Structures are given as C-alpha cells and as structure tokens.
C-alpha cells in the first residue's frame, strides 16, 4: 500500500488538490455542501501553505466575477460552489467561457430551490450545461480529485473554463481511501500556466470584452463552438497521460461490462458505483447487464457513445434532474438523440431519480434492469419516462 493512501471526503480531496495546484487567485463564497472546500483552502492560505491571493467575496456572482477579473489579468484562478451558488453565477459563467478564460471550479451537486433542499441531485450542473463550460462528473472521491487535476490541463490548453462535479454529501462528506499524488507529481503534471493575452501584459495592450454586434458576435460564438469540439481531443490526451503516469485511466465515459451486454444503464456520478454492484450480481445470474458511466457531459461525446451503445437491446437512462420540458430528463434527450442515426435503434427509457437526495439502492437499480429485460423480450416500452420511487 502506497504511503500516499489517505482517507478524504470529496470536499477535502478538492481542497487538497487546490493546495497542490496552488492557484494565483481564489475568490469564493460559502455554500452547503461545498463550503468545506474553500474553508479548508482558506486555512492553507492563512498557514502560508499556498501563494494564493484569497478573496472572500459577498456572493457567488462576485466570486465568479472576481476570478474572471483575475484570469483576465493573467492569473491561474479558481473558485468552488454548489446549487444556488452556481445558479447565481449563471450570468457570469457565460462571460468566463465567452472570453475563453481557463477558470477551474469544483462544483458540488445539490438540488435547486424551491422547495429548499441541501442534498444531491444534478439540477444545478444541468442548469449550466449550455454555458460553454466543460463539465466533468465524478463517481467517487478518487475521481473527484483526479478530475480536478486534469481539469487544470484541459482548461489551460483549450482556454475554456472547466467545472468538476461531485455528488453533494454522498461524496462531498463521505470518507474514502484515495491515492493522492505528491506535490511534485502534481506540479509537473499541471505545469506552469502560460496565459496568451492578458491585461497585465503591459508590453502588449489589449481590449477585452468590447461590444460585439451583428457583424462579429456570431463568429466569436462559432469559435467557442469549435473550442468545445477541439477540447475532446485534449480531454482524451490528458486522461491518457494521467493514466500512464499514475495508473488511473480516464476517457469520456467508463463502459462497464457493456461490450456484450443486452441491457444497460447510462448514469452519471456516484450512482454508477451502486449500479456496478447490481451488474456484477446480474452477470452471476446469467443476465447480460452492462453499465455506461458518463464522465464528460460537456463536450458531449456523441459519436463515441453511439459506437458503444449501438448493440445494446434496451437502455435505461438515469437522470438525476428533470428538464421540466414535459418530455424527459436532460441526459435522456441527449442520449436518445445520439441513437437516432442508427439503422436499428436500441429501445430506450428514462428514469428520473434521486431528486433532492432521495436515496437509490441496489433494489431500485435491479428493478430497472428487470424492466429492461422485459423490454428486451417484448420489444415494447410500457412507460417512456418514469419518476423512480415517487409516491403517487
């Protein structure tokens, strides 16, 4: 066992990663369940363990605005938030991506008010899915830590902001044995930040954020779309390099026993761990069950998902948020879209689950696979979208 093996919650692991990243500027405002990240980090600042300029601001809108300012000035800048905090940042999230700023942000998934609730679902992240941020989801504390380190490289190579999510309380407050890297390994892996154009470069004065009307706005947005497309290569490259160096490989998604599977679940975040256990049990019973854990939601790996899912007979999407579009959850819409081009499409259903932290266990997931088996046999879908475990 490596001496770097330590017990950490996802919040502690994020804070530890931030200490090792040693950003130039961190501006943050506390919010449950993400508070600990910057609370622990501010202690690192007070103890002189990092060189960071820490800015305790008065809101999340200000936190994101401050890191945007810092990033424009040429700094490696970070913040952290959750739920209402991310919602309050929404306006400025688009400015970070539109100005192509490589801001890195741990984001702890929590439901949105109202009704007020502090527990996990993915409504907050999904609300920011079209803001031009790269979004990486984590299954475990280990992945939260690893993803945040990779996010630095991805952001700074693409000049795009990256949020790395972890599930509120389920991971943010749950102790897990993780393998952390040494400070030296992190420093070498992330490298030194080299801003291209920045305001404090007085030798090369620039104008940033000028009015951009009918004649140029569209071209800038096309550039942003291209950056998101290009970021796919970088995400894979960084994930592969991380794997080579530290033994844990990362791609757009993890396909778990899916290559020969007939029934499969697609899910993001911590629920993937529970589902893997069910897959193992079902495999022992002779059922060809598989699992696809989506890690990178933005950019959406459409082509790659299509390739992996095309031979599955029946697929259930687990959506930990609702789009309130009178159709389905957001992950279902996107995956179903991916399958449209196939000559023979798998049957696909949606389960909206776990809103406001409602627990999901082996029994519920087993029930989903049973229903998929039924769909496989009959080739008929009884209910396209279900709200898992909601009382009538």
């Amino acid at each position, binding site marked *: 066992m490596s001496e770097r093996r330590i017990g950490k919650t996802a919040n502690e692991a994020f804070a530890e990663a931030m200490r090792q990243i040693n950003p130039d500027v961190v501006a943050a405002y506390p919010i449950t369940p993400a508070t600990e990240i910057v609370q622990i980090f501010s202690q690192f600042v007070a103890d002189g363990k990092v060189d960071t300029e820490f800015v305790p601001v008065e809101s999340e809108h200000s936190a994101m605005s401050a890191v945007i300012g810092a990033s424009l000035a040429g700094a490696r800048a970070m913040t952290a938030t959750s739920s209402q905090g991310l919602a309050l940042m929404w306006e400025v999230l688009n400015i970070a991506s*539109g*100005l*192509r*700023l490589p801001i890195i942000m741990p984001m702890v998934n929590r439901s949105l008010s109202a009704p007020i609730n502090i527990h996990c679902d993915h409504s907050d992240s999904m609300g920011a899915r079209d803001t031009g941020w790269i979004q990486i989801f984590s299954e475990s504390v280990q992945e939260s830590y690893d993803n945040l380190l990779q996010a630095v490289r991805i952001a700074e190579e693409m*000049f795009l902001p990256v949020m790395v999510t972890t599930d509120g309380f389920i991971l943010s407050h749950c102790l897990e044995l993780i393998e952390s890297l040494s400070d030296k390994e992190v420093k070498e892996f992330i490298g030194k930040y080299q801003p*291209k*154009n920045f305001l404090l470069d007085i030798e090369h*004065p*620039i*104008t*940033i*954020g*000028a009015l*951009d009307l009918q*004649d*140029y706005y569209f*071209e*800038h947005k*096309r*550039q942003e779309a*291209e*950056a998101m497309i290009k970021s796919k290569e970088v995400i894979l490259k960084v994930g592969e390099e991380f794997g080579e160096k530290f033994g844990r490989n990362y791609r757009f998604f993890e396909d778990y026993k899916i290559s020969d599977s007939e029934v499969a679940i697609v899910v993001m975040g911590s629920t993937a761990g529970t589902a893997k256990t069910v897959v193992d049990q079902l495999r022992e019973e002779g059922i060809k069950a598989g699992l696809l854990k989506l890690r990178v939601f933005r950019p959406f790996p459409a082509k790659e998902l299509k390739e992996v899912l095309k031979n599955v007979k029946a697929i259930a999407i687990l959506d930990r948020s609702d789009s309130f579009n009178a159709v389905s959850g957001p992950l279902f819409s996107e995956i179903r879209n991916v399958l449209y081009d196939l000559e023979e499409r798998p049957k696909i259903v949606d389960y909206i689950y776990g809103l406001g932290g409602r627990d999901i266990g082996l029994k519920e997931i087993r029930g989903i696979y049973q229903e998929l088996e039924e769909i496989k046999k009959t080739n008929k879908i009884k209910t396209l979208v279900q709200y898992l475990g909601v009382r009538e």
Partner: protein
Amino acid sequence: MVEGMKKKLGWRQLAPGDLLGPATSLDFETGDWRTQRPIWDGEKCKNCLFCWIYCPDSAIMVKGKKMVGIDYRYCKGCGICAAECRFEAIEMKNEKGGGND
C-alpha cells in the same frame, strides 16, 4: 477603420475570445449619431474647461490649456457641455441646417 472593419474576418481568422488591440474606439467615429450639435462661441468662452471635464466622449479639443473647438468626429451631441457652461458659450442647435463647420 480597424483592419477587421474594412474586410470582415471569418471566425478562423479572429483572435480567440472577444479580444482586440488597444484604443480601437479611435477608429469608431460616433459623430454621426448626433441629432443636435454644440456650437462654441470663442468670444464668450473663458477657458474654464468645465466642458472638457464633463464631456463623456473627450470631444472638447484643448491646446495649451485653452479650448479650441469641438471634435465633431466623436461628439454625440448629448448637450452636457452646453448645460455645464457657465458663460453661455456653447449652444445646442439642430444638426440639420444649424451647423457652422
């Protein structure tokens, strides 16, 4: 005019993000926004330079601490200079038919 305004650049040619060189507003002449034109009377002017302080477009031309005229390339005709002038040395007139330059 800045380079990009002469021939419109495609998205592949632009610098990433909303990024431009410095002082591009010099190339953007806002004078044609004007519906009212400030007319300056050098006889009444005491060179207090209140108009220069207040002008939001830096359109008051000054040489050797003395007001020498209004830069109609940038003046949007807001009338702040005329309102601030203590000596009635600046008068707003309708842009069409009222100008003197």
